[in-house]
């Protein structure tokens, strides 16, 4: 029993030491990555680590290619040698970030500072189940073969019900995926860690790390795509979460229907009868056509804006009331409706909450197609290196 207890305590001590080392590496990397600190002495001061520990860890990080020395700095005060300056090397590794939805798989190959080297995508078409997994690997191959540095990790954003801890897609009916251990499957194949997370949550992470919400205390994201999702990153990233709210019913209609592009097109079709002179085209209609038409005062377009704003305002009100984020971003193709949509949402919100409360959150729009893959990159950088 005694030897077991000793062994256990050795194991615990080693595990704790190992974790401590990882923690200390992350601390140092984060300080240099952020540009806060660029020399060993200042790192030791900031982190309360001994100079010896700092030097050892820095030497390790330099060996691995994450850091380089860039010359001598200035002596701050008193006698002493000028410090050797350190810089983070964003091209030391590359990361793959992916987004999977019912229509397409798209991904990026990025450096450690989020700079995208290559985008790659493919439509899913009629594929289901294992055919989609097969396609996913071919798309990942399309990124892997363009690497110019060692691959660190792969991050994936998906909708549906996920077990993110174990990298399992529990249920994603649109792709015919059920209890799919996607994380381990891909990790085994590519020999790197693979992380899975809710798509909208990843958008929030990406905006916080690389986007408009940098250094804010928090951001909420509402995404409108196949379904409707909410992603949160709050309290300076100490809390993050994301979930699909598409099934939630407002006035008996699921959100994912009320905000869907098909619903918008159906409404336009109905409203044409009352407003036959609408400037909206009959074919190849897009959100941008609605945007343009609204600026011309087109009554059909303006009605659509009002209806969408009504629904979105309800979601926004709840998010602002509960979480008071610094930023609230609406993402997806719907964001092509432009600033007028935000103006109308703001007006509708005033029916429910005070102007002061509304003004405490900055509303944003973003229709960029690569938000989820970029968010997946940011997520991986956080989990693998702790630098963000």
């Amino acid at each position, binding site marked *: 029993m005694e030897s077991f207890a000793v062994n256990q305590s050795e194991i615990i001590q080693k595990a704790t030491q190992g974790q401590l080392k990882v923690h200390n590496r992350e601390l140092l990397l984060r300080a240099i990555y952020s540009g806060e600190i660029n020399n060993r002495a200042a790192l030791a001061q900031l982190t309360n680590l001994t100079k010896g520990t700092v030097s050892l860890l820095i030497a390790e990080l330099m060996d691995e290619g994450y850091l380089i020395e860039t010359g001598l700095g200035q002596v701050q005060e008193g006698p002493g040698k000028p410090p050797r300056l350190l810089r983070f090397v964003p091209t030391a590794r590359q990361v793959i970030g992916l987004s999977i939805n019912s229509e397409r798989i798209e991904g990026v190959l990025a450096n450690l500072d989020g700079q995208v*080297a290559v985008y790659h995508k493919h439509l899913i078409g009629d594929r289901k189940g294992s055919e989609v997994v097969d396609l996913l690997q071919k798309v990942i191959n399309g990124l892997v073969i363009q690497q110019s540095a060692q691959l660190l990790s792969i991050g994936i954003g998906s909708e549906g019900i996920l077990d993110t801890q174990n990298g399992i897609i529990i249920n994603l009916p649109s792709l015919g995926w059920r209890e799919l251990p996607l994380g381990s499957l891909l990790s085994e194949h590519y020999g790197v860690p693979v992380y899975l997370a809710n798509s909208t949550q990843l958008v929030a992470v990406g905006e916080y790390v690389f986007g408009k919400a940098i250094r804010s205390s928090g951001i909420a994201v509402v995404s409108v795509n196949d379904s409707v999702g909410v992603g949160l990153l709050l309290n300076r990233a100490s809390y993050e979460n994301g979930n699909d709210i598409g099934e939630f019913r407002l006035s008996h209609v699921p959100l994912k229907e009320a905000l869907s592009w098909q619903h918008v097109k159906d409404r336009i079709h109905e409203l044409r009868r009352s407003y036959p002179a609408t400037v909206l085209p009959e074919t190849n209609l897009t959100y941008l056509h609605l945007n343009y038409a609204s600026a011309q005062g087109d009554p059909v377009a303006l009605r659509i804006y009002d209806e969408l704003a009504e629904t979105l305002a309800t979601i926004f009100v709840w998010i602002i009331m509960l979480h008071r984020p610094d930023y609230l971003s609406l993402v997806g193709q719907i964001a092509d409706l432009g600033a007028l949509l935000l103006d109308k949402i703001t007006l509708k919100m005033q029916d429910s909450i005070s102007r002061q409360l509304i003004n405490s959150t900055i509303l944003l729009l973003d229709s960029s197609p690569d938000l989820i893959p970029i968010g997946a990159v940011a997520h991986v950088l956080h989990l693998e290196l702790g630098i963000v």
Partner: protein
Amino acid sequence: MPTIGVISQTPDNLYSAQVIDGIRDIAESRDFAVSKIDGQHYHTANLQGIIAIAHEAPDDLLWQIHNDGIPLALVSHQVPDLPVPSVIPNNWLGIARLVEHLIVERNRSRIVFLGGLKSQVDAVQREAAFRDELLRYHITQPESYFLRGNFERDVAARAVEEFAASNQPFDALIAADHIMGLSALEVLREAGIHVPKQVSVVAFDDNEQARRAGLTTVAGELAGLGRCAANQLLAMIRGIEVLGVTTLGLQLIVRRTS
């Protein structure tokens, strides 16, 4: 030495030449030779794989090559349902950046679009992207502001000459490639139109000529397209299955003409 074939009807044109440079960079570093081929005789050339540039190989030829089991990658081209990878410039993002630069940073609002060859995928996407951006910024533009340059210097020059002589007001011109952009610059200057004071001129793609002329461009490095396509093809030759469309990141390079 194992050999990659490149199908390009106009291998000496600036665009193809730079793409082929990129292909060579990668191929030769992996001990593959690169040979420009006539697509119709691909089966006699003993090739490990083929890269087809732009629209210059007909779709049925590309299907034939694929069905014969020869690894195939495409540059600036896509064939519906053909299960081969391709590399194309980031046409949507590039045009969006150029339009944003002109409208938001340079306060322009009457923009002429000098388009490429109607049958070529980059030309189609760049024009569609431009039309989308006009919607986004609520700009109504008559069809007469859409010129056809076919990615050819002389055709572009004639189109711009005719437009300039028509006295329709304009304060900017976007050329769908830098070759047409350079041509437009020459024509406007000869017509006594001051660039950029009266008209800003910007273009898609960049190279040394564009830099020397001070042309503002959005840079999708052409050799980079070739390198990506070569990476795709060499992977397939090694037995790695690749599907999908690759696009490269690009950046706005602001110079004298805007």
